[in-house]
């Protein structure tokens, strides 16, 4: 099953709506609740990152019998140093993002913690691609 959701940069009132849809789908498929939570927490962190940092993005979801593969691609400033961005506490978030309760530099490490596989690539001034894979078994 494949699904595609659009993510609007800067629109915090809609941030999380794509992850919420994925949660509903996984619940309907009777996936283990602990795996649903791990998956949607990582997707939500990624979705908030797109809203906080990029102009626009997409969340492409592919659900198989044994796993979920999600690719989040955005058009935005990109990440110059991914190793640095993966360190807890490192953040380039704006005051507006911090007012929403984010921007503590914990998003990417938390995505890694909540996913079985995580791949990230980024080009400065082009955008970032993040792949999250979680297994149901």
């Amino acid at each position, binding site marked *: 099953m494949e699904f595609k959701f659009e993510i609007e940069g800067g629109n*915090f*009132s809609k*941030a*999380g709506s794509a*992850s*919420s849809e994925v*949660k509903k789908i996984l619940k309907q498929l009777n996936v283990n*609740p602990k795996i649903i*939570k791990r998956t*949607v*927490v990582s997707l*939500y*962190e990624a979705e*908030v990152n797109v809203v906080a940092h990029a102009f626009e993005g997409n969340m492409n979801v592919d659900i198989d019998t044994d796993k979920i593969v999600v690719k989040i691609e955005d058009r935005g400033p990109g990440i110059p140093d991914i190793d640095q961005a993966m360190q807890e506490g490192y953040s380039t978030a704006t005051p507006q993002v911090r007012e*929403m*309760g*984010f*921007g*503590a*530099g*914990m*998003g990417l490490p*938390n995505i890694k*913690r909540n996913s079985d596989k995580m791949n990230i690539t980024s080009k400065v001034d082009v955008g970032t691609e993040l792949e999250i894979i979680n297994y149901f078994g």
Partner: protein
Amino acid sequence: MVKVVDVVDKLNARVICGSGDMNQEIQFGFASDLMSDVLTIDTENLLLITGLNNLQTIRTSEMSDISFILFVRDKKATVEMKELACENEITLIECSHSMFRACSILNEIGLQPVY
């Protein structure tokens, strides 16, 4: 364990959205205005105690399977927040105490810290 009715009674609080079952029991409490911190918690049956009143408080709770939110410092949930909370069967409670006082009272009546 504390019951929703005890939270409401001891904090002079009000339930503004929820199932209406005041006898539901809650085991743990976690207090934070930082949703990034909340998203790292892997504990079930949790009351989120926060002064952050925006939609992302509800979204964070939805993703984290948090069924109870207590707003402190007299913060009021907006109509959109209530709608999203109701849709996700999240109980919203409001009180006028500071976060410190609310946590102190809740711990005294048996709500446990996550760590």
